[in-house]
């Protein structure tokens, strides 16, 4: 059932989550339930693995475990070939910078009292001060923002939603990560902006060899984006495989229900009336 994403050549995965289990106690009772129940996922370098499921399926808990933000009951988190499951404090922080989160709500991810420049400089503590400015400009260009003086001096609330998400991505890139953990990074974005952010992330993957663990409830989006899909339901991976295989012949009822529930446009190729 647990089918990690295998490559022909033995490459070190950007991230391996091995047999992860996490239980929580039910409120007002001694009974425990498994939010994540023996999940194994492997993200090869430079590839995208999509973790698909509804709210409550355990996908975000798994992301928080990967980032070591919450404790796990059992299992191993291996980042770039290095086991970080037991690391703590500074040792953990130093290793973990290679895995950067990009979450749903860019507003809450950015300190409202720091300018764009300050937010980026904070992520460049390993760089000499006089090099930070140049690097900030370079990164902002990478994420498709024109790095003017005006922009660098702006606070998050002075940016548009799309710009904010780009700044979050820029800050993540400033740490030179090998993998981005993207938990519903598009949910807050407007429809016309979604494509821009998607294209940016696809380009960055190609230019910088980034790996993505992409967490989403949208199986259609997952299919168009990922090299590998894992569908989570009640803490377990119920099906995983290449998108085509999962979409065309879902072997389980849950994935079929998920596929049927996604609203799709009743048209395959729109033609503008004015063309």
């Amino acid at each position, binding site marked *: 059932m647990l089918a990690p994403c295998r490559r022909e050549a033995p490459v070190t995965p950007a991230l391996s989550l091995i047999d992860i289990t996490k239980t929580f106690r039910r409120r007002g009772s001694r009974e425990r339930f498994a939010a994540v129940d023996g999940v194994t996922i492997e993200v090869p370098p430079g590839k995208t693995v999509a973790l698909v499921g*509804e*709210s*409550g399926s355990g996908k975000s808990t798994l992301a928080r475990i990967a980032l070591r933000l919450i404790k796990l009951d059992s299992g191993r988190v291996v980042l770039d070939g290095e086991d970080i499951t037991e690391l703590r404090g500074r040792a953990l922080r130093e290793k973990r910078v290679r895995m950067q989160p990009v979450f749903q709500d860019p507003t809450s991810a950015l300190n409202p009292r720091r300018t764009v420049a300050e937010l980026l400089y904070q992520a460049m503590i390993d760089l000499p001060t006089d090099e930070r400015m140049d690097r900030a400009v370079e990164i902002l260009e990478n994420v498709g923002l024109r790095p003017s003086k005006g922009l660098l001096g702006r606070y998050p609330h002075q940016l*548009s*939603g*799309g*710009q904010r998400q780009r700044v979050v991505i820029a800050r993540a890139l400033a740490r030179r990560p090998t993998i981005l953990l993207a938990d519903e990074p598009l949910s807050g974005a*407007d*429809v*016309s*902006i*979604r*494509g*821009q952010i*998607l*294209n940016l992330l*696809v380009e960055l993957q190609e230019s910088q060899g980034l790996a993505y663990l992409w967490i989403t*409830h*949208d199986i*259609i*989006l997952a299919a*168009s984006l990922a090299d590998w899909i894992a569908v989570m339901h009640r803490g377990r991976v119920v099906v995983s495989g290449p998108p085509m295989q999962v979409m065309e012949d879902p072997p389980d009822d849950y994935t079929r*229900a*998920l596929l*049927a*529930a*996604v*609203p*799709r*446009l*009743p*048209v395959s190729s*729109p*033609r*503008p*009336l*004015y*063309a």
Partner: protein
Amino acid sequence: MTQVLEVDRLSVTYRSGGSTVHAVRGASLSVGRAEFVGVVGESGSGKSTVARAVLGLLPGNARITEGSIMLEGRDVTHLQPEERRRTRGNPATMVFQDPLSYLNPVMRVGEQIAEGVRLHDQEADVAGRVKELLGMVQLPKEVARSYPHELSGGMRQRVMIAIALGCRPKLLIADEPTTALDVVTQASVLDLLRRIQAEIGLAVLFISHDLAVVANLVDRVYVMYSGTTVESAPARDLVQAPGHPYTYGLVSAAMVRRDGSGGFSTIPGEVPDLSVIGPGCPFAPRCPEAQERCQAQAPPLVAVGGRRTVRCWLHVDGRRR
């Protein structure tokens, strides 16, 4: 025949700090009896402001500067607050995105449904009607004794619908009612809305940012951009043959598909700043079809065929059709 709702060239501004935000600028839309109508737009398109204006729920810093709102043929645009309050529940009622913030946390949901029934349906046997309403939204009658926090998101939204229906409305305004729900729950709530709409012949104005949701649900769609209605057409026609370049962009973006070169479809640029109004079409800076005239002068709304209106110079000039 009188429309249940008729919004005519409505403009609404907000005062914010020292500036004036033109949230709605000459938006027109109507909903007929038992008609299921959708409004699609991005943030800042003015769709929620229109909903709030219809219900008389605009915040204190908002002002209707132009146009009118008719509910069942009655002009309610500038009614006094007390008079306006009487239009809520019946004829017009609403369901919003986040049921938890609209439900009273310390009152059992049965009692919350009963409140509306007592107010708007005085002949009714209240207990019987509450049971009936819970049945209509496919909740077991025991739910009446629950508190909101004991229910799932989908159940809470069903309770909101039951409360709304208890007022025997003619028009239900649903503003992003399923946005906070996951896809499977969303599908079941949408299915319920559609069933109820057809069953009791309710007029529904369904507001959403999600074109795919709307296109599968409603009879007719309005597309809003930058405070105005840029196109309206039967749902299927709208997605198959978009009449406005913005609609075309939205449809393409909603397909979530990669083109030959691996890119996702997108609309370049960003939603415009509503505190600055230029003379031209608000979509012109992002429009692939824009010509000189578009920058200089805002296009009028024109009828294209029998059931479509579009606000775009392409259709005025008769360059096509």
